[in-house]
């Protein structure tokens, strides 16, 4: 398995996105990389999943993180640890200006426009609690979801029955 890994993935640091997983004390991080097709002379995107430990326990699914290879592996599967968070899902900070950003708009500018229009009932980023409060009750992005077909008395919220 290690022999077939492309050179990029053997780097000491990698950038990836945290992906939903059933792991209790670790995170699954999906790392995108490009492979070169010799005949077409073009790059095609591939992804590889790594299991990383997050010592600060701050990272949630959807965050873009930098993972660093562990010098010594205590468990067989845990190969990396999260060294820094690049972007937090929902609270993206533009590193050049240092302001919080929503898509291609600055949050404070958006709030000013909302105020001028007299908007009520909009989502207030400053007053909202940190992400993770509703995990398991309303937010089901932390663990992978699956399709379920049978109606149980007590339905698993992560099983979708559409």
């Amino acid at each position, binding site marked *: 398995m290690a022999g077939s890994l492309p050179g*990029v993935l053997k780097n000491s640091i990698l950038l990836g996105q945290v992906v939903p997983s059933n792991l209790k004390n670790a995170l699954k991080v999906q790392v*995108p990389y490009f492979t070169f097709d010799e005949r077409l002379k073009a790059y095609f995107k591939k992804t590889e999943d790594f299991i990383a430990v997050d010592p600060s326990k701050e990272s949630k699914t959807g965050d873009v993180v930098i993972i660093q290879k562990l010098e010594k592996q205590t468990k067989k599967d845990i190969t990396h640890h999260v*060294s820094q968070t690049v*972007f937090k899902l929902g609270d993206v900070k533009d*590193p050049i200006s240092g302001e919080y950003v929503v*898509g291609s708009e600055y949050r404070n500018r958006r709030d000013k426009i909302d105020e001028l229009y007299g908007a009520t009932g909009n989502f207030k980023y400053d007053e909202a609690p940190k992400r993770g409060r509703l995990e398991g009750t309303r937010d089901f992005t932390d663990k992978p979801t699956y399709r379920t077909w049978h109606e149980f008395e007590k339905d698993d919220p992560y099983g979708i029955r559409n």
Partner: protein
Amino acid sequence: MPFMKGVAPIRRTTKYLARCPLVLKPRVKVMTVNFNDKGEEHSEGVRDFVFWNLPQIQYKNPNVQIVTFKDMTPSPFITCFMEDNSKVYFDVDSQTNKEIMDRLVKTVGKSKQVLEEEAIASEAKSNPANFNRRLGFERHCICEMPGQVPCPSVVPVPIHWRGKWWNQGHRYEEEE
């Protein structure tokens, strides 16, 4: 250019890919490009950079992870992550792709001099005309090539070809 389908297929030629001035310094491990799609004028240069130059950069730096992010922030920027967990930001708002490339070469790229030295060093290594099996070349001596003088350890060389005969004065002797 055979098999040249798609938009701007010249990007898919080896000659084009190899003509990249940016070879990243070995401590750069990840390069991230954040830009905005369609319409935003300030991102036009970065969009061109991603379209024309990113494949070139990845070709010259196969072990650097290159990632693009679209429409995440209002202004475009490029980030280079080093192996010691430090990062360098490049604010590329309203810059053309040539300007961006030149700036990257100046800051995180190997200089032309270093590249030339490396080219010379790699030529010496990969030249198939060299001998010495111990150093990785294919042939140990010219004696193993058909049509050349065979190895003197196997077939003795004619005595009048030997430097010993010549220097001992035998060439002045009368031939029998």
